[in-house]
C-alpha cells in the first residue's frame, strides 16, 4: 500500500511516521465494491453503527448503574427519572440490542442467499459466527443487569442449562453463579463481562472487516469482479448508498425508541427480581426465541442444550456442507425454494419459542427443529450435488449494463475523478 499524500500537513506528518491515514484511505476510500451490490450489502455498515451506538450509550449508562442486587433495579429507575436524558440513553440501549439482532440476522440471511460464506470467504463467515456468539452472550448478560423478574429468572433458567452436562455440570453452574443460586456475585460478574465483551466484539469486527478486505465483497451475482469496469470505489459510491440506508434504518430505530420503547420488552422486567416468586411464563428476549424453541424440542435437558449449540455449530461448518460451486441462489433453481423454507422455519421456531411448551406447540417445535438440521446437514449437501444451476453471466458489467444501462462499459473506468 503506497503512502498517500494528504492535503493537511499534520495528517501527512503523522502518516509518514504511522500510516494509519493511508490505511483508512486504502480500506474505506479506494476499497473496490462490486458495482452491482444491492442494499442488502448495507447491513454490515448498519451493524457497525449499532455496535458503536451500544458502546457509547452503554458507557454512559454504566456511569450511573449500580451492580448490586439491592440497588440495581432502583439505580436503573434513577437513570430513567433523575439522570439528564437518562431515559433516552436507556431506551436507545435497550432497543439498540433488538436492532442489533434484526440487522445482524438480515446480514446473515444475505450471506446465506448469495453464498457469501463459500470460498474464499469461509473464514470471514466463521468470524461472523464468532461475533454472533459473543453478541448473544453480551445481550444475555445485559438483560440481567436491571435485575427485574425476567432478568433474574432468565439468568436462572439459562445458567441452569449447564447443569445438564454429566459430572461437571453442577460444579460449572456453581462456578458461574459464584454461589449456590443467581445472586450478587452473579450480577457483579455479569456486569463486568457485559462491560468488556462489546470491546471484544469490536476487535473481532475489525478482524471481520480485515478479512473482508482481503477477499473483497461478494455480490448478488456471486461471480468475482474481473476488472475496474465491474467495481466502484467505496467512497463516494458506497458511503452515500450506506448513508441513505442508514437514514431509513434510523427512522425505524427512532420509531421504537421514542414512540413505543417497551414494545420489544417484557412487562415483568419492571417488577423487581424476587427469588421467591416465579413468573407465569419465563420467556427470553425475542432474538433468542428460535434457539429457545430448539432447546425445548427434546424432553432431555442435555439433548436440548447440545442441539441448541449444534444449531450454531452447523453455521460454523456451513462452508463445507454446501457442495454447490455456484454462490448466488439467483442461479440455483432447486435450492431457492429451500432457502425460503428455511427462513420460514426460523420464524416458526421463533413463534414456538414464545409459546408455552404444551400440546401442539411441542410437536411443531420438534418438526421445525428437525427441519432446521435437515436443511443444513442433508438438503444443503445434497442439492449442491444434484442441482443444475442456471448459466452464470460472463461478467458483472455485462449483466448490469444490458439491463437498461445508459452508458457503455468503461464509462466508470475512472470514477474517482468525479468525487
Amino acid at each position, binding site marked *: 500500500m503506497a503512502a498517500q499524500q494528504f492535503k493537511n500537513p499534520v495528517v501527512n506528518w503523522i502518516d509518514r511516521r504511522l500510516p494509519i491515514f493511508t490505511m483508512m484511505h486504502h480500506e474505506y476510500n479506494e476499497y473496490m465494491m462490486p*458495482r452491482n451490490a*444491492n442494499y*442488502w450489502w448495507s447491513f454490515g455498515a448498519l451493524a457497525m453503527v449499532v455496535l458503536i451506538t451500544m458502546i457509547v450509550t452503554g458507557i454512559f449508562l454504566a456511569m450511573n448503574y449500580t451492580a448490586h442486587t439491592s440497588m440495581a433495579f*432502583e439505580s436503573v*429507575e434513577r437513570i*430513567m*427519572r433523575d439522570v439528564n436524558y437518562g*431515559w*433516552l440513553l436507556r*431506551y436507545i440501549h435497550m432497543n439498540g440490542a433488538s436492532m442489533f439482532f434484526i440487522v445482524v440476522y*438480515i446480514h446473515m*440471511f444475505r450471506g446465506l*442467499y448469495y453464498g457469501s460464506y463459500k470460498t474464499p470467504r469461509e473464514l470471514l463467515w466463521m468470524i461472523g459466527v464468532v461475533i454472533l456468539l459473543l453478541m448473544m452472550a453480551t445481550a444475555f448478560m445485559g438483560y440481567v443487569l436491571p435485575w427485574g423478574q425476567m432478568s433474574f429468572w432468565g439468568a436462572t433458567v439459562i445458567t441452569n442449562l449447564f447443569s445438564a452436562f454429566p459430572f461437571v455440570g453442577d460444579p460449572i453452574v456453581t462456578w458461574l453463579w459464584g454461589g449456590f443460586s443467581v445472586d450478587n456475585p452473579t450480577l457483579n460478574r455479569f456486569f463486568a463481562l457485559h462491560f468488556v465483551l462489546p470491546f471484544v466484539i469490536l476487535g473481532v469486527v475489525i478482524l471481520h472487516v480485515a478479512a473482508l478486505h482481503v477477499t473483497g465483497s461478494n455480490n*448478488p451475482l456471486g461471480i468475482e469482479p474481473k476488472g475496474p469496469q465491474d467495481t*466502484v470505489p467505496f467512497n*463516494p*459510491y458506497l458511503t*452515500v*448508498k450506506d*448513508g*441513505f440506508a*442508514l*437514514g431509513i434504518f*434510523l*427512522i*425505524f430505530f*427512532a*420509531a*421504537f*425508541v*421514542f*414512540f*413505543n*420503547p*417497551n*414494545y*420489544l*420488552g*417484557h*412487562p*415483568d422486567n*419492571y*417488577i423487581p427480581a424476587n427469588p421467591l416468586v416465579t413468573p*407465569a*411464563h419465563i*420467556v427470553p428476549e425475542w432474538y433468542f426465541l428460535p434457539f429457545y424453541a430448539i432447546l425445548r424440542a427434546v424432553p432431555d435437558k442435555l439433548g436440548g442444550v447440545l442441539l441448541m449449540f449444534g444449531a450454531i455449530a452447523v453455521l460454523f461448518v456451513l462452508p463445507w456442507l454446501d457442495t454447490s460451486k455456484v454462490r448466488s*441462489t*439467483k442461479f440455483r433453481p432447486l435450492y431457492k425454494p429451500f432457502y*425460503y423454507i428455511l427462513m420460514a422455519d426460523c420464524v416458526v421456531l421463533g413463534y414456538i419459542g*414464545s*409459546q*408455552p411448551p404444551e400440546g401442539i406447540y411441542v410437536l411443531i417445535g420438534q418438526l421445525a427443529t428437525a427441519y432446521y438440521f435437515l436443511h443444513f446437514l442433508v438438503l444443503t449437501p445434497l442439492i449442491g450435488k444434484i442441482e443444475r444451476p442456471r448459466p452464470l453471466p460472463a461478467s458483472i458489467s455485462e449483466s*448490469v449494463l444490458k439491463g*437498461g444501462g*445508459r*452508458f457503455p462499459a468503461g*464509462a*466508470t473506468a475512472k*470514477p474517482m475523478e*468525479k468525487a
Partner: protein
Amino acid sequence: MRAMRTAFIAAGLALGLTGVLGVPGSARAAEAVHLPEVSFSHEGIFGTFDRGSAQRGFQVYKEVCAACHSMRLVSYRNLAELGFNEDEVKAIAAQYEVTAGPNDQGEMFQRPAVAADRFKSPFPNDQAARASNNGALPPDLSLMAKARVGGEKYIYGLLTGYEEAPAEVTVPDGQYYNKYFPGHLLGMPPILQPDGVTYADGTPATVEQMAHDVATFLTWAAEPNLEARKQMGIKVILFLLVFTGMMYAVKRKVWADVH
C-alpha cells in the same frame, strides 16, 4: 430475492407501524388478555398527559390507594410536573411525617416530609403489608403502568372489573372476583365506590372517572418523561426524514453515470 425483499419490507413496516401507533407492547404476549376499551390523552405520537385528570388521579391515590399501596420511586417534588406549584408541593409533603436521623444524640426522630422526600409508604415492610391484607401483598404502584400486560388500560379494567362470580366459581374469604385479573380471584377489595373522593374541580366522582384518573396518574408515575420523549421523537423523525431525503438525492446524483 424480490420476494424476500417484499417480505422483509412488509414485515419491517408492520413492526414499525405497530411500534409507532402505540399498540401496547405486551398485547402480543402469550395469553390473549382482553382489555377494556378506554382511551387516554397520552396515547399516540402527539399524546400529552391530561393534567387535570392526573391531578385528580393523585388525589385518588392519596385518599384511597395509599392506604395500602406504596409508591417508593416517586418524590413529592415530582408532583410539580403535574402542575402543582412549589407551595402546593410543600404543603402536600408536609402532611406526612417521616423518620429521619440519627440526630446528634444518635436518635431517630420524626419530621414533616419535604419536597425531596419519596412518597411515604403505608407500611414499614412487606410483612406488615401482608398482615393487614389477609396475607396478600399490595404491590408498589410506581411502575405498575409498565409492569402489567395492558398497562393503564389494565389498571382501569382492574378497578372497574369487579363483578358477581359465575356460579361454578367459589370465591374464598378475603378474595374478590374480577374479570380482568388473571385467574380472576383478587386479594384487593372493590375499593372505588361512587363519590369515594370529592373532586375540587367539581368533576363527578364516578367509579369510571376515578379509575381513569388514577390510571392516568400511574402512567405518569411510571413514565414521567413520556411527553419529553414523544416531543423529541417528532423532531428526531422529522430531521431523519430530511437527512434521508438528502442522502437519497446525493446517492442518485453520485450513481447517475454508473447505472
